[in-house]
């Protein structure tokens, strides 16, 4: 027979054990997270350090964690044409590609989300399927065709081919935002005598404007990050930032410091714009399958 106080102590020790198990679990959780975050951030940290090092410190072995920092690498990167020209080209091509995608993609996304018609899913999937093709299966023939059409090494040629990524990504992402708006909006607008055109404007530019903006940000990141289009279809004058950075390490004698500074200058703008779209990113990454 168990007396009252004994029972109380048993319950007490069991609670204590549970509490300490929980504390242990919490410690384990923090250790696990810190380990993964270290893995995720160390390369960024290392390249940041490298961008602040003098040439002698870059090649030192053992590698230096403590040194006198310098901004010379940034000054160098920002003064060399083989960095600035690709940077400018990337801006032109990316912004151009986003503009084209918005003009033809916004009505498409609206129709796919808000209207019922035959073969809707087939059309939607044929857009999405562009994203699943290995890039070269289209780019390699274009390498030949563009030279015949005089589109090789032109901004227009690149902007058109960038639609391969921005168009399916943004149409499917915007479509998932459009689908979230209740049907009553159109009914209300049509009762007030508005046409589909009023509904389209109301929904695209008022109600889901943040969604359209987030889609554009993600489109920007994907276009900016692309490598293979520029590698094959851009010449000297239209080289983009990713192919430009690669040249820093392949052709001339390797200037690690300037390359690292160029890398930082390439990714920092992306991190800044991404903060805004982070919440919505998952829709873009999964073509709206996961709403997040």
């Amino acid at each position: 027979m168990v007396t009252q106080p004994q029972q109380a102590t048993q319950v007490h020790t069991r609670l204590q054990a549970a509490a300490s198990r929980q504390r242990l679990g919490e410690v384990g959780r923090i250790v696990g997270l810190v380990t993964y975050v270290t893995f995720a951030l160390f390369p960024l940290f290392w390249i940041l350090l490298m961008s602040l090092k003098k040439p002698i410190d870059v090649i030192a072995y053992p590698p230096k964690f403590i040194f006198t920092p310098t901004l010379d690498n940034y000054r160098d990167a920002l003064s060399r044409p083989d960095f600035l020209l690709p940077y400018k080209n990337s801006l032109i091509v990316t912004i151009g590609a986003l503009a084209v995608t918005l003009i033809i993609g916004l009505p498409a996304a609206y129709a796919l989300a808000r209207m019922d018609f035959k073969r809707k899913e087939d059309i939607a999937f044929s857009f999405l399927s562009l994203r699943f093709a290995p890039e070269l299966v289209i780019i390699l023939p274009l390498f030949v065709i563009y030279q015949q059409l005089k589109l090789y090494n032109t901004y227009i040629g690149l902007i058109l081919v960038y639609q391969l990524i921005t168009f399916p990504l943004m149409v499917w992402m915007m479509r998932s935002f459009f689908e979230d708006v209740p049907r009553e909006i159109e009914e209300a607008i049509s009762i007030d005598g508005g046409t589909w055109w009023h509904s389209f404007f109301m929904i695209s530019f008022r109600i889901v404007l943040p969604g359209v903006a987030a889609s554009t940000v993600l489109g920007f990141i994907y276009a900016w990050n692309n490598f293979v289009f520029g590698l094959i279809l851009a010449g000297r004058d239209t080289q983009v930032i990713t192919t430009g950075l690669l040249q820093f390490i392949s052709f001339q004698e390797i200037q690690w410091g300037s390359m690292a500074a160029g890398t930082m200058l390439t990714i920092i703008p992306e991190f800044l714009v991404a903060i805004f779209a982070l919440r919505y990113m998952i829709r873009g990454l999964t073509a709206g399958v996961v709403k997040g």
Partner: protein
Amino acid sequence: MVRSSRSLPYLLLLPGILLSVAILYPFLTGAYWSFTRYDLGSGAPPSFNGIANYVRLLTNGLGLHAILITFVYAALAVAVETILGFGVALLLLKEGPLTSVFRALVVLPLLMPPVVATIMWKVMMTPNGVLNYLLQQVGLPPFGWLGTTATALPSTVLIDAWIYTPFVILILLAGLQSIPDDVREAARVDGANWWWEQSHIIIPLLRPFFVIIVVFRGIDALKSFDIIYTSTQGGPINATMNLHVQAYFTGIRSLNIGAAMAFLVILWAFCYALAFGLLRLRRGRPA
């Protein structure tokens, strides 16, 4: 309304449809070239040679090797990223100030150009780089990284995992958050331990999310190009030469367009087989 609403959706979609058709042209032209002898360097136009390119690809060592590398790379990358991503998503599930900072930080690798990420890793993976230095500090021998045939493929998969594990984390975190708390509590009340709870309740509930991961990551890993091209160019001695990179060297460097297109059509077929999985998935609408 001025126009009949029956044709309006198609009108709105017309530019997009025209774009898709425009893209179909190079694709079909390229697919035709895969059945021709087309050497851009010789200046001769493509001449039909039936399935000769495919026969050569599937009978010589180079083509079969590239197919093997393509699948080994994709399988390893998807497996590593799914397991690691699931673990980290579980750790990030509990709300808290530290968690929200970490949730933002772990996404960073996914936002940068894969080429730039690969350059970073390449710098760290040199024989006298910081990774071997850190290994030495903890008493381990230096690793071959991208430089030896045995270690190059795992090293490229490591870079892939660094970039894309956040993708898995984001999706599984959304999945985990969609599971109501009372489901977990019910399991605990029944006396289920942690491991039983994950394997019998959580993982089955997350099944649709795992399918999404395998489809999206699987396709992207099958057509991996940027990481391999930037880190090893398919070397050393073809140890990392997958179909996509092989097609680049055959088509752009050797100008053998016919053979390169055969590589690409085969790779395209693999990717689309996985993509059709997604089509059926979306019809089922898991989330």
